[in-house]
């Protein structure tokens, strides 16, 4: 699993918890992966939209202008499951070497 896959896993997991707007997705990911720029995460989010894993819609933001909200599609849920499986396998493989 590459770092990109880990980022993708976290991103999909975030969206699985409910629809979110761009900044709401990018900020926690940047906090968790401080050496990754938000543009890279945005590129990932955009790529997921292109591959049909996410969809977006406009909705009123907190008092300000409309915001673009992202939501998970069934294809996105499938991809999340796939990445979760990969993550578990990798975690078990690493644990077998005694890595805590």
């Amino acid at each position, binding site marked *: 699993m590459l770092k990109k896959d880990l980022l993708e896993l976290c991103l999909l997991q975030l969206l699985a918890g409910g629809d979110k*707007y*761009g*900044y709401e997705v*990018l*900020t926690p990911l*940047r906090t968790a992966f401080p050496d990754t*720029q*938000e*543009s*890279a995460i*945005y*590129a990932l989010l*955009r790529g997921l939209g292109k591959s049909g894993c996410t969809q977006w819609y406009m909705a009123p933001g907190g008092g300000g202008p409309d*915001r*673009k909200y992202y939501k998970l599609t069934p294809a996105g849920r499938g991809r999340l499951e796939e990445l979760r499986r990969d993550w578990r396998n990798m975690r078990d493989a690493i644990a077998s070497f005694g890595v805590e």
Partner: protein
Amino acid sequence: MMKQKKPLTKVQYLKKFSRAVRWRLPPQESEEAIADYRELVFQPERDEEKLVEELGTPAQAAHLITDVKTYRRWLAVFAVLAFGLFLQTKWLWTARGVTFNGARVWWNPVLVMVIGLPLSLYWFRKHGQENGPLSKRLLITLAVVAVVGCGILCRLWQLSGVSVFDQYPGGSYGFERQVYWLNTAMMCAGVLMAFAGVTGLVLAKCRDRRWLALYILCLTVGAILGFIIFVIHAMDMTFGAPELMRTYVFSHILPVGVIGLIGTGVALC
């Protein structure tokens, strides 16, 4: 002591990002990305000082969302179109072309137009996008290019009208001097056409596809000037019947001009 670079403001960041992304991405995708970045950059929580640190430079941000295949295809098209303008200018300055299968060398600049006109129209019709009302700047620039082209053609018409020795007190020497000045004017106009043409291409990609009209008009004027320069260089100056050149040149450049104007009109629609 090194002078510290001023951090970009939110407006500057978005402006730079918009420019980079419009150059790299197809119109619809670039507008979408700009809207997303507007939302991200202008978040009230966003610290302007840390903009580049958090988002990367505008060029990096644009690079990350670039579809490399599509971008390379655009670069290839741009290179072909810009190289055509460069070739026309080079021929205007050197008057040395390449012969294909015995074809006359003065068709070289027109051949560039035969490739550039349909290729650019096809590309921008398929991948370009209109953006707002027709720009006044575009109309003014088109008018300037047209005036430069027509001015040179008028001078050529005058020069090639009457017999050389009757028209100029200096005889053939006087005529040659006039041709020399016309030649110089055409060389300078060629450089102007090349710069304006490339500007038209860049603006057609980054702003509004109707700027392609400027490229096509410059390409047409460049082709006509190139044709004339080759003919002038091949002409025997001691031959006292320049009206023959007038008939030859104008009967050949008229269809080229008409096709170019039609192309310009199509690009404006």
